[in-house]
């Protein structure tokens, strides 16, 4: 086979493309975080940005929100995917769910978040469908559901988008773990579906999907768009507040933003370490659990709950898209009407031309990025 002499260069280029911007960004964050931003006439070093950051009254809650929403979203979506796979892989419901979830991977986070907000807000679609007949509400109740203090709605918004992602990753990993034979033997020994899978396949699958899970954790902790739409804003999560500082007309606020970004980085690293320790603890108790030889009395219940949760997360995104579509054609749509007074093309006519331009640019950027990434990846594997 004739080897190409450019091929050995590709891994080096890939490293540069991957690490170059990250390192440049890190330098461009660390310097202002310590008071050095010559473009704005500020020279460091100084600890003032961190002092300002820790003086901000919203910091404890903003940081806590980042941690709790990240850990909750990651662990719940992981649990749903693992239990659904354990209870149903290879069955017809599983194939249906798989087909339902795969296209949802391509739904943008922001669109899913808006759809969720339109569904579950006190004046949202669910409330409208049952009002006033069942609820007695002529006016929406004053309930803090969207933008709730603890970021639970935001966590839900993250879960419904992470479940399809983790499921696809898991499916890819299953092929390399010899799952079928393990589960056949486990069941021959009298283990239930879920318990047998968790005891024999899960440890191997988890080792395969660990990096993507870390990605989900880091992403969930630092997400901005979902947090802006569904998260609280008095105060917002740390990542949103950083964006606000960074776009403040007062350039000096960028220093505080940079300090906040370093704190956010620290929080993410800390959460990853915490998660890694959690893995050790789970493995320890998991081994004990395996040794007990429990065959899984509650397996059918667990499997059903997991399937409902998985199907529920898919349905939330699907109905969210449906309600977005209705809104896009809606004339006036007051509460508690289940549907708009009239349907109109007005919104589409209004934003159509601009949307086409944006669509073209989005597609261009996406194709270019995917093409370059593909070349680099294959190049690395080949050389």
């Amino acid at each position, binding site marked *: 086979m004739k080897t190409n002499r450019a091929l050995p260069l590709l891994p080096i280029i890939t490293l540069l493309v991957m690490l170059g911007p990250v390192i440049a960004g890190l330098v461009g964050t660390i310097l202002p975080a310590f008071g050095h931003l010559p*473009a*704005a*006439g500020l020279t460091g070093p100084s600890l003032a940005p961190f002092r300002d950051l820790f003086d*901000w*009254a*919203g910091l404890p*809650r903003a940081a806590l929100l980042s941690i709790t929403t990240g850990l909750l979203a990651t662990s719940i979506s992981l649990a749903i995917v693992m239990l659904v796979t354990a209870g149903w892989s290879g069955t017809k419901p599983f194939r249906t769910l798989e087909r339902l979830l795969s296209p949802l991977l391509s739904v943008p986070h922001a669109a899913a978040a808006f759809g969720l907000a339109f569904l579950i*807000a*006190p*004046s949202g679609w669910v409330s409208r469908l049952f009002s006033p007949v069942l609820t007695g509400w002529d*006016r*929406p109740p*004053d309930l*803090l559901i*969207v*933008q709730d*203090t603890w970021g639970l709605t935001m966590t839900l918004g993250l879960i419904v988008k992470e479940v399809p992602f983790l499921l696809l990753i898991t499916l890819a990993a299953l092929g390399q773990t010899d799952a079928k034979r393990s589960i056949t033997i486990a069941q021959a020994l009298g283990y239930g579906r879920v318990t047998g899978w968790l005891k024999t396949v899960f440890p191997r699958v988890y080792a395969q999907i660990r990096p993507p899970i870390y990605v989900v954790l880091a992403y969930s902790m630092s997400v901005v768009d979902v947090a*802006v739409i569904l998260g*609280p*804003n*008095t*105060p917002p999560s740390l990542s949103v507040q950083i964006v606000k500082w960074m*776009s*403040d*007309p007062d*350039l000096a606020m960028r220093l505080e933003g940079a300090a906040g970004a370093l704190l956010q980085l620290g929080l993410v690293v800390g959460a990853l370490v915490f998660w890694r320790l959690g893995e050790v603890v789970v493995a320890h108790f998991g081994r004990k659990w395996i040794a007990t030889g429990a065959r899984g009395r509650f397996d059918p219940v667990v499997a059903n709950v997991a399937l409902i949760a998985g199907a529920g997360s898919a349905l939330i995104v699907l109905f969210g898209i449906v309600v977005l579509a209705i809104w896009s054609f*809606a*004339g*006036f*749509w*007051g*509460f*508690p009407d289940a549907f708009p007074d009239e349907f*109109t093309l*007005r919104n589409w006519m*209004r*934003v159509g031309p601009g949307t086409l331009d944006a669509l073209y640019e989005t597609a261009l950027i996406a194709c270019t990025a995917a093409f370059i990434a593909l070349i680099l990846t294959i190049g690395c594997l080949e050389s």
Partner: protein
Amino acid sequence: MKHLAILAALLAPVPAFAETDPANWDGVTAAAQGQTVYWNAWGGSTTTNDFIAWVGARVAEDYGVTLEHVKLTDTADAVTRVLSEKQAGEDDDGAIDMIWINGANFAAMKDADLLFGPYAEQLPNWAFVDVDGKTVQTDFTVPIEGYESPWAMAQVVFIHDTADLAEPLGSMQAILEWSQANPGRFTYPQPPDFLGTTFLKQALVDLLDDASVLSEPATDENYDAVTAPLWTYLDALTPTLWRAGRAYPTTGPAQLQLIADGEVDLAISFSPGEATAAIANNQLPSTARTFVLDKGTIGNASFVAIPYNSGSSEGAMVVANFLMSPEAQARAQDPEILGYGTVLNMDALSADDRARFDALELGVATLSPAELGAVQAEPHPSWMTRIADDWASRYGVAQ
């Protein structure tokens, strides 16, 4: 001096873009031909965006100027951009040619010499502007001196859904009492959104017996005493707000959506015609109406300014001039389109042009000029900056 200036001009490297004297209008329109003007304007309202698109079509037709609307969420972003360009030495052809601006942002840019001009009073359509009757030569008490040109008058009104709140409320105190009796039915956009800060200003102006102190810059000595009634008021109001003040709509349009959703019954607006336009656009129920406070409400003008480093200042002047034309002003005032108040003096117009305005219906939810009543002056920008910061630390992290 003059010779020195000419000498400097000759010695300076050839400028990429020669700027034309605003008074030489033929020269301006000739240079504007083929220029692209990037107008940075708040893009949060579809009706406004549509109007700007229409302006773009008209100036392309008449002057060969291409207008691109750069949609901002916050005008301060544009100020930052021009400032950054100045620091980076981009003095000839910055990314921004025109900004929809007023108040603190104008004061900051004028102060930092970031604006092109004076040009406003040399524009041909300035002759139609109501200089005596409307505040178009000062902006939040800051003298304009030709560095921005007006294009719309705004005044605070309150939009109420008469299906749930039938009678107008005459004062901030009355709004508080109503909100206490009807908890969860009122909110305002979260400061520092401009409409949210406008609510705070309006509250302060209405609560003070004598608001004249606000026309001078805030000082460390008087700030606490003057604003004390505002914080007392907000401490009483906040627990009665929508979601008990634990969440706020992010913008004015988000606040209107809450009325349409039946979540709240009362909202603040800085455009007397907005309610009518929103009803026509299915964004408000047909039962929405507007009212002003008994003592009057804050009013101001919207302007456009041209950054000092615009490479298309002639094109921008053409757009600024067109915005002050009877044609554009009558369209902006049409309640079905925008419902913005005009900056023009009706007596200065020709009979045909006056007829354009006379033909306009007020709109179902728009108050007549007489009903809009007294216009209160905007406080000096320094008040707003401090009040917005204080609001954020008192209520923005309240949980």
